[in-house]
């Protein structure tokens, strides 16, 4: 039994931690939920890109094209990629660290890849659009804060069993928000803890490695990285063409039923080139096993992720575990739902604090502006992203600021929420229409269809919620019999 004063302090601490991190946590959860479908969103941004069936991919033709790109020193970056088609992402690309071009099934170069909105979304989730180095540390620190929130939240909830299935939406707005907050957070707490720890890993790994380097490797960070990732394989100085076809033909023997999805030329700008082929194994959580080859196609070794020790496997499993990138679409849908639940938890947590004050003021307006303005900003930036090649980050923040200003000017939270729901619904309708008008049938196939179905699902949800609010507001309060 937890003592009453402990519960009281846990509630106060939980509120304080939630208020400190609320808005940032909300943005990270919202963007992270959508990023579960990052591969599909990238395809949705350009549904007219050539589709390449993995079974009919012409590796010999791709080899010629890839080598001609590698021969052009103007396009070269230290790493050059040949992205191979898979059943989940049936597209082939040649990419540098800066740009990417699609390939036709016959290996010829097609249009340039445009993934500006998904890049903006990724930057929002990873760095909150701040400079990368400390933006990532800030976002990762929020993972640790989420761990703190989960622990204080559990201590703050002594009636956790008594309220396990309680959802009282008909009493007061405070109880309404509290029940939504608690039911979504308590049941999904183990999942949210997993997301918090794996999320904190990305940004805290580098500072932690710096401490390890100082403590164990006399400040040599490269030595730490080599301990984890291994050293580059010894290769003969070679500027010969990359034997893509010969390498890929070896993969079924080397990798069994693993899915080969990427061929990377390392040290592409130097004479010490070598090739890494990444293979995803369905029976393992690790992101990939990397098979290293010489440019002539001689197999050197693997990076040893799949058959390595526990530590290696853990380090290389974090990404897939965090983004739900395993076991296909149903896991992704579940991650989306539970991620959106965490987003609602972040929003409702602040709503509980606002409702407890029993007054509405500018803070209530501002928070409503952040909560409803963020999805609107994402929708509008996605819509203009089909034409704009730059400035989507500015569009996002401008729309968010405009939504906050509108909420502050209206001075009526209920009216603003209703207006924002309608604007969000309108934004989603416009987004679907743009997809249909720009891409026609292409918008209704493979990954584009999946994302458009999600957009339609969100639209339907918004319409239902708004309809319910309209119905409630039109009903008069019945006078009591007494």
């Amino acid at each position: 039994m937890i003592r009453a004063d402990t519960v009281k302090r846990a509630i106060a601490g939980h509120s304080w931690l939630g208020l400190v991190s609320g808005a940032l946590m909300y943005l990270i959860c919202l963007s992270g939920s959508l990023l579960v479908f990052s591969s599909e969103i990238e395809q949705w941004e350009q549904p007219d890109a050539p589709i390449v069936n993995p079974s009919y991919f012409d590796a010999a033709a791709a080899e010629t094209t890839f080598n001609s790109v590698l021969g052009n020193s103007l396009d070269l970056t230290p790493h050059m990629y040949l992205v191979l088609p898979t059943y989940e992402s049936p597209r082939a690309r040649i990419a540098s660290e800066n740009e990417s071009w699609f390939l036709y099934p016959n290996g010829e170069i097609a249009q340039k890849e445009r993934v500006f909105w998904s890049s903006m979304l990724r930057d929002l989730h990873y760095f909150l659009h701040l400079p990368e180095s400390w933006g990532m540390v800030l976002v990762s620190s929020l993972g640790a804060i989420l761990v703190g929130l989960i622990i204080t939240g559990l201590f703050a909830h002594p009636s956790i069993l008594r309220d396990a299935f309680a959802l009282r939406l008909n009493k007061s707005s405070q109880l309404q928000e509290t029940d939504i907050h608690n039911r979504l957070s308590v049941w999904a707490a183990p999942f949210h803890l997993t997301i918090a720890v794996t999320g904190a890993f990305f940004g805290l790994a580098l500072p932690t490695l710096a401490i390890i380097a100082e403590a164990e490797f006399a400040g040599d960070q490269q030595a730490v990285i080599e301990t984890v990732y291994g050293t580059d394989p010894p290769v003969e100085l070679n500027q010969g063409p990359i034997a893509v076809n010969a390498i890929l033909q070896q993969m079924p023997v080397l990798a069994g039923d693993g899915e080969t999805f990427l061929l990377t030329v390392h040290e592409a700008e130097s004479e010490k080139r070598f090739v890494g082929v990444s293979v995803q194994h369905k029976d393992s959580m690790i992101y990939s096993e990397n098979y290293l080859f010489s440019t002539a196609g001689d197999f050197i070794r693997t990076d040893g992720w799949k058959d390595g020790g526990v530590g290696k496997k853990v380090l290389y499993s974090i990404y897939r575990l965090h983004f739900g990138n395993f076991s296909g679409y149903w896991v992704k849908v579940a991650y989306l739902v539970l991620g959106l639940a965490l987003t609602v938890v972040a929003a409702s947590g602040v709503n509980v604090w606002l409702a407890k004050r029993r007054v509405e003021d500018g803070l209530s307006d501002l928070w409503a502006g952040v909560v409803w303005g963020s999805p609107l900003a994402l929708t509008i930036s996605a819509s203009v992203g089909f034409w704009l090649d730059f400035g989507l980050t500015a569009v996002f923040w401008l729309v968010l600021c405009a939504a906050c200003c509108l909420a502050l000017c209206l001075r009526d939270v209920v009216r603003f929420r209703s207006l924002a729901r309608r604007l969000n619904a309108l934004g989603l309708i416009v987004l679907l229409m743009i997809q249909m008008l720009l891409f026609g049938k292409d918008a209704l196939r493979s990954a584009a269809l999946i994302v458009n179905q999600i957009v339609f699902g969100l639209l339907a949800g918004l319409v239902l919620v708004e309809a319910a609010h309209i119905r409630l507001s039109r009903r008069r309060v019945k006078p009591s019999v007494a």
Partner: protein
Amino acid sequence: MLVFIAWLFAASAVLLAFCLWRRLLDLRFAAAWLMLLLSMSFLFFGLAYQPVFAAVYVFLVTPSLAWIFVAYAGTFPTTALTRSKRTATDWVPRNVAGNLAKFFWVIVFSGLASILSVVAVCNLLPWSPIDRMALMVVAGPLVWGMVSAWMLIQQWSWRQPAFLTVIGLSAFMMLIR
């Protein structure tokens, strides 16, 4: 088939929890039965895939099923709820300095002390460097979150910052020695 059985066990666990909550059932050692059902779900997911996947599936399936029951048991409003009174906004939070100090101790300093301590303690383990590093980067944020929560839940006094300072400095000394 194994996945179906795993789903069935998870659904049974949630259904049992719901029946107990509604007092439709009175069962001795109810918590043990619930744990057993969830463990069986984990076991069958593990047989179908692998333990890591199984744990995630149980984490995904259980809340998804529980929320269906939550929605079923929910009471929904029939009229619009009473709104709070509108007041002027007090934009400047009270006790800014106190909150900043709290932010420094609870978030920044506890983070630093936690990461240093985790690295120092993990270094003592007789494991390979890569296994120790994996533990450090996973345990680091977990310990940070726990320490922050501990500082918030405790009665605030000088003892907590002092304790953290001692721990952090000891870890630091151990790392640079």
